[in-house]
């Protein structure tokens, strides 16, 4: 089978559409995850989603339904409980462990669960259907539109909450909107790379972008670009060389971050001496 034949297969094409949509949303939301130091919340929401998916399967529903409900509820809980950026780690931790406990319960109640569990945990990118693509594209578009509408207030409240509140913004309101966006993005990203590797699209590209520029818009565009290239290339390598697509995507995203860090370290070597 030639590479071109593989790439022309319907399920591979679905995968390309899906990763394109998810990468753009994850890059944009990921920029704020990194800026707001909310990687832990992103991590927790993904794992909470796992419990939701397990519960949905137990009830005979599509895992996506469970993912959506649980991720959104977790986002809202974290947003309400940890209103300020300072007291939220405990809230996130409690939400996370409570949901993981539920997940364990659901799995134990449902015996034939191994396959579904595996695909939620590690992604099922080569199994997405047209319906999945449509859902992922719609949700990603919604996320991108909302991010573009709240971009400046969200940036303001993330960078300098005290001033932003004094100037009339609602820290809690923006935090809730943002965590809902994060939850939606997590749900669609889980379709691609799975719960355990959601970070590769949400955090790694944005973290790399933050190393490359100090202009917010540019960093956000870069994060989207890095996520897109990582997932396109990862998908290509998975189809071409074999191996799990999730592995390739995470490897590429993480490498980009390493390269960005190394570049900064190398550049700051000499100026650091001349300043002193």
């Amino acid at each position, binding site marked *: 089978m030639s590479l071109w034949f593989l790439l022309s297969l319907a399920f591979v094409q679905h995968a390309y559409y899906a990763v394109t949509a998810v990468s753009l949303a994850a890059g944009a939301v990921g920029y704020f995850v990194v800026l707001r130091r909310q990687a832990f919340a992103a991590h927790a929401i993904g794992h909470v989603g796992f419990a939701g998916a397990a519960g949905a399967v137990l009830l005979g529903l599509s895992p996506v339904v469970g993912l959506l409900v649980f991720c959104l509820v977790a986002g809202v809980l974290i947003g309400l409980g940890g209103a300020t950026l300072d007291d939220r780690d405990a809230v996130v931790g409690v939400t996370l462990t409570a949901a993981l406990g539920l997940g364990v319960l659901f799995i134990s109640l449902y015996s034939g669960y191994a396959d579904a569990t595996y695909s939620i945990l590690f992604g099922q990118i080569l199994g997405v259907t047209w319906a999945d693509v449509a859902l992922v594209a719609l949700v990603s578009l919604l996320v991108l539109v909302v991010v573009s509408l709240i971009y*400046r*207030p969200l940036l*303001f409240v993330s960078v300098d909450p*005290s*001033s932003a509140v*004094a*100037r009339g913004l609602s820290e809690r309101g923006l935090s809730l909107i943002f965590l809902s966006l994060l939850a939606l993005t997590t749900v669609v990203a889980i379709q691609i790379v799975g719960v355990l590797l959601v970070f590769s699209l949400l955090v790694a590209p944005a973290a790399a972008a933050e190393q490359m520029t*100090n202009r917010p818009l540019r960093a956000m565009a870069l994060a989207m670009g890095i996520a897109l290239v990582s997932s396109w290339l990862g998908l290509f390598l998975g189809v071409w060389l074999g191996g799990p697509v999730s592995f390739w995507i995470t490897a590429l995203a993480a490498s980009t971050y390493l390269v960005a860090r190394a570049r900064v370290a190398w550049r700051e070597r000499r100026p650091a001496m001349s300043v002193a």
Partner: protein
Amino acid sequence: MNALELHDASVTRGGKVIWRDANVNVAPGTVTAVLGPNGAGKSTLLLCALGLVSLSGGSIEVLGDSPRRGSSRVGYMPQSRRDAEQAISGRDYVALGYDGTHYGWRRGGARAKADAVQEALSLTGARAFADRPLRTLSGGQRQRVALAHATVFRPQLLLLDEPLAALDLAAQAEIVDLVNLIRDTTGAAVVVVAHDLNPLSSLVDQVLWIARRQVRSGTPDEVVNESVLSELYGHAVEIVVTPRGRRVIVGLEEEFAHPHPHPHVAGHAHAARDEEAHEHFAEIYGDDS
């Protein structure tokens, strides 16, 4: 019309009276220093002016109106900020002061925004490092950027919470000069919360001293004298003027726990060196943070 007016104003938070019966007038173009021990309610006064805390009694007017949260006529520089950890550039941070509260897609005006940001950065002398990430700036540089952020929309009342905290003496003097320049250039009234009047003394038209739930206001000489402060604190307070004209207040420290690890002796004999002396004065001046 005064920039800030309080009539018999009282604030209660969590069932506890913070201060009461405050009568204050801040005229346009003047600088008012707010002094007093930790927890006396100095920052609360700023929050009242911002419309974030409401009075439990009396009245407050900001620029002729009741305080309104989010007013674009009031600039505010909070003490606790997160700029020391930010990767974004100073220029982008100042731009947030200009239109950071606007939702939706930009409707033109990019040019006017860039000009306003550049002008604010020039005024505060922050242009040279405006494109560096905030987290790489020194404390004094960060204060300059933060002042540009708080003034980019040309407020008529500027509220600064401890702008000199954690700065070395040289940087303190620079920021004091800068506040003076901002006042002269924009005509804004400035209210500065501080724990030491000395570095501000060249700048200040009026002093507000808050202690034991009372507020006294007046010129520095009217407030910072032994009889007023003794009455305010409820025990004898002594003021010593150093040869360089600094006022050292002796007798405040007994009332409040001291956060500093080293023992503190009033009337320290070795405080000859300027810096040492200053540190010492700052300490006893107002039980600083």
